[in-house]
């Protein structure tokens, strides 16, 4: 079936099967490999993307269901001039990345969190990111990076 996906501000006309999952269409057909496959069943958040500003697991969305929405992947956070989003910069500055596999998912979730709650408490950060799992860092630096991004946004 013919659909049009809007991803990171661009329109992509595609021919997809009804059963094709958005995660694989993004990665394999659109070559946007920032979004990761972690578990495939919505438990880890590595595949987090935004649809109309709301974080969702791309592994549990059919590509045809995403038609009509504005999809944002981690690639879409980089500005036209190549500048990193403040959340990305904070993760890099604070060393909140070890293997890096969970990182795109966390960054996309954190961006959505800060768009919804500009100055979250630590508890709100934890709750907002509860759908993203990290096996390396123990989360401490991830929360600190999100909090650093709050201060950056406040300046």
């Amino acid at each position, binding site marked *: 079936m013919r659909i049009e996906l809007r991803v990171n501000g661009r329109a992509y006309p595609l021919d997809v*099967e009804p059963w094709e999952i958005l995660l694989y269409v993004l990665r394999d057909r659109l070559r946007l490999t920032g979004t990761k496959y972690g578990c495939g069943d919505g438990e880890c958040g590595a595949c987090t993307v935004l649809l109309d500003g709301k974080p969702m697991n791309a592994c*549990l969305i059919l590509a045809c269901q995403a038609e009509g929405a504005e999809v944002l992947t981690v690639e879409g956070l980089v500005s036209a001039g190549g500048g990193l989003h403040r959340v990305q910069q904070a993760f890099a500055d604070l060393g909140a990345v070890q293997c890096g596999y969970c990182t795109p998912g966390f960054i996309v979730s954190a961006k959505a*969190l800060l768009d919804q709650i500009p100055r979250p408490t630590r508890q709100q950060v934890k709750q907002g990111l509860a*759908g993203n799992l990290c096996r390396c860092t123990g989360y401490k630096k991830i929360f600190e990076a999100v909090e650093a991004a709050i201060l950056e946004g406040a300046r």
Partner: protein
Amino acid sequence: MGRLEYVRPAGLAPALDLLARHGGRTTIIAGGTDLLVQRDLRKVEGYLLDVGSIRELRGIAEEDGQIVIGASVTHAEVEASPLIRRHAPTLAAACAEVGGEQIQNRGTIGGNLANASPAADSVPPLYTLRARVILGSREGWREVPIPEFFLGPGRTVRRPTELVTAVRFPKAILRIAFFLKLGQRSAQTIAKASVALAAAVDSAGHLRDVRVSLGSVGPTVIDARGTAAFLEGKAPTKEVILEAGRILQGEARPIDDIRSTQEYRRELVRALLFKGFLPYLRG
């Protein structure tokens, strides 16, 4: 490989028409957070009916003293609704417990009902709200009190020609209300057991119109009538709640499974009831 045809109607009539003609070979998808985990759609034939955009199923309204939630309203939308926070705070709390943000932004109330997991978080609060599930078909409508909607794990009274269109419950003043769930983790977790309770309080401080339900400790959510009957008319003292916990233990029908054991779950429901009452204990 057979043919699967995806349809996403904007209105209810074409959806009900499709189900009337082809309900037996139609798979319904809303948020997809249960369906896409359970089934490989490459192996499914027939119609794939996406109900997520049907306008009549989207929205939360107040009508004649009732709150009506459209089946395609997401858990996130229920949680954020000022109407739900005011009149059904345990339902809002339960929707905030489903998975994490990502799941809550896709999963719907209708899907949570139709999927009929005994561990579904929204269901125990809906029992305490005395909710009714509304089923629509081309032939008309019917309402089913929620305890009659579920037949067993994954099974409901919905016929293949029917669609869960909404859930509704009367607005009520319930001064005591809680929903507590314990899972392996604090988020992204399926309940080992859950307890929902709602009650009014009379001028003497006694519990009235008590409703208690249990999740994850039976083939369906359990309407704990024995516990509710015991609590009716009593003051919420420590002794009363401890005794209620013993009765509640007896009403649970847990099994051993990958998440927990029968023995632990019986202890857990008692503990959750007591924990829920802690802010309200008297004497």
